[in-house]
């Protein structure tokens, strides 16, 4: 009976750990392959251990160019979409105005539209308008689909913020600009940073929309796609592993710094608006 109960209480966790394993497996494989010396160009199997790929990540210069291009596009798209999206989020949370629900719909729709449709429709627009495709058309496209995610992320943070904090600032002699700078901004900033990181990763990783609008510009996903036909240099796995490691490190560092990596089982103090 006790064994049965033990199992009954833990099988969900068991299944969960198996699923987490399923999610982690390809990442481990990518990490392993980054130390692989493949037997031939088209092989995806592990052949021989080597550190060469990490020593010479740019052995295939086209790949490093593509990574650089992706970083540039990601950076510009992130800055533009974060600024525009944050402004929109402020308008949507802090103001009642005619056309608010229409705006909400316009923000929601891109998230519910298949990327394929967004990609092809932008292609149709650029072609019919005679716009040559390249770096900037990709940026335009990326800002477009990142925008909604930025709005949603910042809006959630802003909506969760107690309006009385700003009133308290005004009550304590802070003018509108000071109240914004000293109270609103610091409290919303984590949301804006999260939105920017999300935008960057969406942009950096996008293939489908980019594929239709890049012209001859090659981003990292475009490069991998093309190389998949011809044979993938193992350095691709170095980039994948490095991205994973950097992102994971960022997440772990911030949560360790804020002490939120391990949730406290007993909440200390009363539930106040935590940062």
């Amino acid at each position, binding site marked *: 009976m006790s064994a049965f109960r033990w199992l009954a209480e833990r099988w969900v966790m068991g299944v969960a750990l198996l699923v987490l394993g399923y999610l982690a497996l390809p990442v481990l494989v990518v990490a392993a392959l980054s130390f692989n010396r493949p037997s031939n160009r088209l092989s995806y199997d592990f052949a021989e251990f080597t550190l060469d790929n990490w020593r010479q990540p740019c052995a295939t210069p086209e790949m490093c160019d593509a990574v650089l291009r992706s970083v540039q596009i990601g950076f510009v798209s992130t800055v533009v979409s974060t600024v525009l999206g944050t402004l929109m989020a402020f308008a949507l949370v802090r103001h009642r105005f005619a056309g608010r629900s229409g705006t909400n719909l316009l923000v929601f729709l891109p998230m519910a539209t298949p990327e394929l449709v967004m990609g092809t429709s932008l292609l149709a627009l650029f072609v019919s308008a005679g716009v040559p495709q390249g770096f900037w058309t990709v940026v335009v496209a990326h800002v477009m689909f990142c925008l909604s995610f930025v709005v949603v992320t910042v809006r959630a943070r802003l909506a969760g913020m107690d309006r009385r904090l700003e009133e308290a600032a005004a009550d304590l002699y802070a003018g509108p600009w000071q109240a914004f700078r000293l*109270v609103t901004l610091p409290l919303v900033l984590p949301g804006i940073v999260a939105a920017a990181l999300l935008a960057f990763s969406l942009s950096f990783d996008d293939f489908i929309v980019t594929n239709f609008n890049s012209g001859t510009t090659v981003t990292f996903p475009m490069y991998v796609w093309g190389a998949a036909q011809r044979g993938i240099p193992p350095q691709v796995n170095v980039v994948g592993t490095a991205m994973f490691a950097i992102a994971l490190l960022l997440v772990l560092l911030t949560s360790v710094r804020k002490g939120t990596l391990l949730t406290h089982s007993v909440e200390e103090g009363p539930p*106040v608006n935590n940062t």
Partner: protein
Amino acid sequence: MNGMVNESPGGDLRLDGLTKRFGRITAVDGLDLTVAQGSFFALLGPSGCGKTTTLRAVAGLEEPTSGRVLLGDRDITRLRPHRRPVNTVFQSYALFPHLNVHENVAFGLRRRGIRSVDAEVARMLALVRLDGFGPRRPAQLSGGQQQRVALARALINQPQVLLLDEPLGALDLKLRRQMQVELKRLQIEVGTTFVQVTHDQEEAMTMADTVAVMNAGRIEQLGGPADIYEYPATAFVANFLGQSNLLAAEAAGPAGSEVPVTAHGARFSVPADRARADRGAVHLGVRPEKLHLAGTDAGLPAGHQHVAGVVTDASYVGVSTQYLVRTAWGGELSAFVANSGLGGQLPIGASVVAHWDPRHAFLLPREPGHGDRAAGRLDAPVGAAP
């Protein structure tokens, strides 16, 4: 900063025809009010009565639809909140979660360009008995400690008026009692005008010098806690501040120093100086603790008036026992009998005579058609039409 006039001699806070409408809803309806400098003033009323809106209009967080807010001779109606010599202790405190206690308290001083704030902050923290709590974050404090930080954060600015929005609402009962005393002590110590908004009658009565009872955007009665309690102005006040037995009665004008009334076929009278109305439809009011119960009508104290009835319910609450007495006409009266003697309790079904000293009774105007209002029904909608 230059715009701040903190050194001016201040003066009374005056509201002059203050009105605030939200769309078609009138939250505050032509309020006229004077709060004397240095007094502890309470705006008491049920939720939605407009008391918080009034407070926010004084703070500058809500722009009145019409009317004026005056501080001494100064019209501050259109002054932005950060330019008013008024500070607020917000409901649930609104402490800045990203700043520590020290920076929270120093916030107002820094905004006014004061550089060296440390000594003043330390002095304020000592005043609210939070010495050494400066480096902590608000989330690390208990509710009572947060309350005191909010108080220090407002008081450090030496406002002419301190506004408190349900300051003790988030605290548990015991802490609330403690803080009531503490707040009163602080108010006397700093001598600032305190205007407090609360829906808790006990809180208003223990702390405030003057209480304004608000209902539906208007002030129903203004005065000292005891004056209001002993001689309420309206049926709403009679049942919002404590409880009252209100009998539907008819009056036909004063006769000498008395106002005779008829209620349910019986004749009573009330001293003329305790009649808010003396003609037509009136309520005859008696507080439950002023209603005494006796076995028979023989040997009642001289001058007492009485009604016969049957005990239908008895709740023992320690200091007193609360009885419900059903009268011959089917109404129910509530009577609180102090458990001061050795006598046992009256059994349910006992025939009793409820009697009172007419000097404790009062007459209030009654809308024709409104019947009795029994006390003892805390959940009954008070002030609303039946």
